[in-house]
């Protein structure tokens, strides 16, 4: 077996351990016995004790949602970095996340009356994500239709500011307590997790991962440049469209339930690439795993560091992410 397969198996072990720790620790500690009891009551009518209910209805969906969102953010980073051939882009920087947050906030204030059922929230977040991402790309194209990375980052900055202030405005109008919290949208939290939103996010993740893996080969070819990719039979236009679409879809759905969580999509793929190279299939598998581990750890820390108070998860991911971002900017010596 190859090195990557061993790392993947090891990573699965680490993820499971972190998740186990995460369901146990917190403001209330749940022990192994209670976890097993709660699981054995699945499907029966027996009532749960308080600790068992905390595990079953709060901790477990939260930890699972955190893992899936971490995986989504990392995969989004892999896709965007591969598409733009640049290690400093991530969904948060190109406006997708803030647009999605705006769409979600709009849903909470106005959209509850829309006849969309349970998909109303992810749908609105998706529209917001499409709008903001499209704006960033339109603004950062030069006359020849090529993207300049500096223009991309600056447009991202402007659009992020615009949409997040839009979120701020809407949060004054909103009645829903969660939607009212600016902290929630800006810094993210997985405290709103339940089995229903876990279901929606997981479905989006699995669909996007499966399709992304099918395009891994084409993204590899793109490393050699667009012309070379065409020579190897890649339909570059379709590739770009599909990858952007998948990215917006996943990120929007994740952001709708957890707010904007920055820098996971930047740091994780970069770290994995440093150790395992740029082959995108490997990068996707390992990055999703590392993203899940990283976000679960961040969430665990955010719940336990100042327990019973809870830090927004984005504070921790930003603390890790900003130094890496600055390092990358300096290393690559971008000319401003």
């Amino acid at each position, binding site marked *: 077996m190859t090195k990557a397969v061993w790392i993947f198996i090891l990573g699965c072990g680490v993820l499971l351990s972190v998740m186990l720790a995460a369901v146990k620790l917190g403001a209330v500690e749940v022990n192994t016995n209670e976890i097993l009891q709660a699981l054995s009551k699945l499907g029966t009518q027996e009532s749960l004790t308080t600790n068992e209910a905390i595990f079953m209805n709060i901790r477990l969906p939260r930890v699972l949602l955190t893992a899936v969102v971490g995986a989504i953010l990392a995969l989004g980073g892999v896709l965007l970095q591969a598409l733009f051939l640049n290690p400093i882009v991530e969904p948060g920087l190109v406006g997708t996340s803030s647009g999605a947050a705006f769409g979600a906030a709009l849903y909470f204030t106005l959209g509850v009356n829309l006849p969309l059922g349970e998909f109303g929230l992810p749908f609105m977040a998706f529209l917001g994500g499409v709008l903001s991402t499209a704006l960033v790309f339109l603004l950062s194209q030069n006359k020849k239709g090529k993207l300049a990375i500096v223009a991309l980052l600056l447009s991202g900055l402007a659009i992020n500011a615009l949409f997040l202030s839009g979120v701020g405005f809407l949060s004054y109008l909103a009645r829903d307590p969660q939607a009212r919290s600016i902290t929630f949208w800006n810094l993210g939290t997985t405290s709103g997790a339940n089995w229903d939103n876990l279901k929606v996010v997981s479905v989006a993740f699995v669909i996007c991962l499966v399709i992304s893996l099918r395009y891994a080969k084409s993204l590899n070819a793109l490393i050699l440049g667009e012309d070379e990719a065409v020579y190897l*039979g890649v339909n570059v236009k379709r590739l770009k469209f599909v990858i952007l679409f998948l990215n917006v879809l996943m990120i929007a759905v994740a952001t709708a339930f957890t707010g904007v969580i920055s820098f996971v999509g930047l740091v994780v793929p970069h770290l994995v690439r440093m150790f395992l190279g740029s*082959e995108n299939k490997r990068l996707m598998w390992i990055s999703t795993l590392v993203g899940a581990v990283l976000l679960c750890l961040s969430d665990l820390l955010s719940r336990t560091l100042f327990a019973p108070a809870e830090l927004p998860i984005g504070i921790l991911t930003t603390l890790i992410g900003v130094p890496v971002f600055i390092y990358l900017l300096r290393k690559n010596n971008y000319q401003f």
Partner: protein
Amino acid sequence: MKIEGVEFSIKQQLIAQVEDAYLEKGKIHFVVGKNGAGKTSLLKILSGLEPNYKGEVSFLGRGLRDWKMEELAQRRAVLSQSNFNAFPIKVEELVMMGRYPFFQQNATQKDKEIVAKALALFELQKFVGRDFLSLSGGERQRVLFAKCIAQIWGKEGHRKYLFLDEPLTYLDVEYQVQFLQLLRDLIERFNLTIVGVIHDINLAINYGDNFLLMHAGKCVEQGDGSRVLSRENMQKYFKVEPHVLEHQGRDFFVF
């Protein structure tokens, strides 16, 4: 491969024009000319990258524009003057890209064998596991060449094309000669036709079968070496006054 009235312009500026040409199978065709004469543009048209030209190119009996990119990738490889440095990539992973048009998700045993043979052909085994970006210019060129060979490897009886844009860049004389000799050998082995842009006139004369001379966007001469790469054409189109040395019945130039 047949070219009929091909004309490619950008903003009314003529970039590449070939009235009429036939690139016979199993031969080495070289496109020669000064810098900016339209050689690379012509190669982009013929390799299917640039579809916005007037006229017709027929590739293996079918209009070039009617080919899907996926199909085309199974019948021709292109060694271009690519310059990429965004992400590190391992040598064997890069050569494997040449097999991408032939498998869906995972490389088969056969693809892996072909990659190993292509690496061996260019004496690249010792670079397996190395990052492509850590190699020298000449070593990189050999890796990219191996990728192209992996792409046109195999399937006896199927005609394949190899397009080369200045393949000798960065190579020292030993490898230049080795390459051109290798091309000769591969023609029969893979049922190959080669179309290349080349700068070294003497190597072109020595290894080419047919020549297209480009000047100011137009193909002004075509045919064999003695006709296209004559002393008069050297003076007229390259603005040099070479001495002529005869060797094995052919004229070579000392500049």
